[in-house]
């Protein structure tokens, strides 16, 4: 028990250094883009940015939990697609209230995430392989469900989720905020969060101290799946059509956000709001570079460089 405490505190100082760097990085980025393009800080652009960040944000929240246990979830993009398609198929029935397709989407995410969890925790398949397999399987299910045809004609009440506002705030942004609040409570307000950190920091020590490691590992993949399902619902509602190829490669930005935010891929170290900063950095990069009309080819190079630099900083912190 004592060893766990000491590790936690040392990690705290290291983490603080890392997060500070990322927040400074975010502010610098915002300043640079604003100087180059004052319109960047217009209220409607800020809301655009936040709305655009909402889908990746939900994925990154789930990814944080998974990475904290030392795992990775490569399947979130495909789960977005699968959940989105089944939500769309449900939403084609205009008699059903919007909550039904939403629950369907969440349900698909829950099921697929749980499968990941079982394969990783019980069958002991390495997370990289297990979720890589699910990436393919979920995408295949999505194409099968619709024969690769899009699923249009969704009910109006469902479309409000992605396209509507509450006052001036877009609903996807509210959903993201709700997700952040939920994850904050899970990670910092319940014993569950300590267990997640414990399993990631030292799995054996965690098991010895009585934590049900298998259950914790299974649960984080399930959570990642549910959040990916929610992201799928929001995405489908936003483009008002279920697309079989939706969410393709979205896992990359999610992982990037988590890593940039300071959560170590080794597990056991990290902060939720580090992920939020990481999500904002990715969103600011995407939006800002678009605002400056930087060629998409350069955008790919810039984004990749930022991610690699973040990982280097992370590993430097690790080795101190």
């Amino acid at each position: 028990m004592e060893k766990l405490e000491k590790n936690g505190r040392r990690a705290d100082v290291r983490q603080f250094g890392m997060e500070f760097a990322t927040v400074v990085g975010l502010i610098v980025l915002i300043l640079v883009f604003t100087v180059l393009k004052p319109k960047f800080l217009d209220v409607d652009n800020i809301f655009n940015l936040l709305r655009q960040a909402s889908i990746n944000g939900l994925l990154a929240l789930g990814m944080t939990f998974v990475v904290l246990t030392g795992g990775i979830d490569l399947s979130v993009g495909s789960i977005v697609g699968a959940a989105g398609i089944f939500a769309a198929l449900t939403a084609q029935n205009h008699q059903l209230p919007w909550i039904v397709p939403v629950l369907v989407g969440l349900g698909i995410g829950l099921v697929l995430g749980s499968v990941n969890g079982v394969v990783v925790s019980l069958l002991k398949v390495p997370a990289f392989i297990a979720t890589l397999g699910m990436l393919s399987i979920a995408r295949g299910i999505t194409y099968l469900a619709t024969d690769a045809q899009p699923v249009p004609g969704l009910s109006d009440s469902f479309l409000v989720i992605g396209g509507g506002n509450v006052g001036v705030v877009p609903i996807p942004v509210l959903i993201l905020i709700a997700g952040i609040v939920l994850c904050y409570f899970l990670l910092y307000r319940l014993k569950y969060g300590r267990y997640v950190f414990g399993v990631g920091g030292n799995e054996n020590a965690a098991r010895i101290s009585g934590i049900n490691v298998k259950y914790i590992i299974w649960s984080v993949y399930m959570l990642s799946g549910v959040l990916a399902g929610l992201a799928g619902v929001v995405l489908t509602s936003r483009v008002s059509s279920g697309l079989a190829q939706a969410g393709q490669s979205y896992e990359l930005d999610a992982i990037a956000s988590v890593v940039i935010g300071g959560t170590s891929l080794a597990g056991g170290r990290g902060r939720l709001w580090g992920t939020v900063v990481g999500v904002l950095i990715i969103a600011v990069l995407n939006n800002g570079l678009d605002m400056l009309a930087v060629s998409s080819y350069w955008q790919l190079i810039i984004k990749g460089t930022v991610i690699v630099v973040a990982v280097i900083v992370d590993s430097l912190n690790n080795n101190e």
Partner: protein
Amino acid sequence: MKKMRRWVALCMAAALVSSVTACSSGTSASSGGAASATASAAPASAAAGGAAGGKKLVVGMTLYSLKNEFTVRLSNAAKKEAAKLGNVDLKIYDGNYDPNTQLNQVETMISDGVNAVILNPQDAKACAACVDKAAAANIPVIGVNTRVDSDKLTSYVGSQDVYGGELEMQAIADKIGGKGNIVVLDGPLGQSAQLERSEGIRNVLKKYPNIKILAEKTANWSRSEGMSVMENWLQSFDKVDAIVGENDEMALGALQACKGKNLKIPVIGIDGITDGLNAVENGDMIATIFQDAAAQGSKALDVAVAKAKGEKVEKNYWIDFEKVTKDNVAEYKKRAQ
């Protein structure tokens, strides 16, 4: 507790910083509450200013991809035309085959205060959201090359895909003497070009009851996908009499697959990209249906600028498909620069 305090403090700081800077950015008319209402006022007045002369017009163009020859030709033509006209600032975005990304880009364009949007959509239905957003901000949307399902579209510049499909199917039907087994490679399902070219192919097939489609599958406009699909078909079917590719890239992929098995099967595509024209020249493809990307791109820009200046524009501008065979391929190779 300490964590909570740090968390709250940072959120408040962020909120403060953003509100202060948002209020102090004096250029745009938008502020706090009525964001969308004032955002629509801004581009409208900018457009009026453009008509008054001197002020630069800003046009945003999002293409479903910038990673294939045809769409690159489209965007280059638009760029060239913008440079020719002079006072037009053209911004080009790569939609990455993702309608959500295109929607993000259109939203960014609207914040940016563009005077017109040129949309080359990935999906006919999903990209309707892009048109809705721009229309709500009173910004004209010009569709180019591929359709979008929206009646709020200002104008469309493209080629008649149904006719293109008919042209290529007819060429194949003539080549195989009106009977045989064929395979068809489709574009991305749901994109208007795929829907309409398939319709054209079926229109012609009605006349030929002795031509059977053995298999039809999407290869998403991709050469490598076309090659894999064709390899599998060559394995499973004893005899394929002809290959109909809804675009050159996929047809060329199928061609590679045939070469791999030392088979010579009549192939046809659409677009007239460089490799396609070369294949027609050396007899690998029986023909291709040339789609004038350059004309589409520059016309789309012209229409966008005209509408932004407040001029009246037509609902549709059609640019013909042209059949390219060995006889006339040399002329097309010169044009497609």
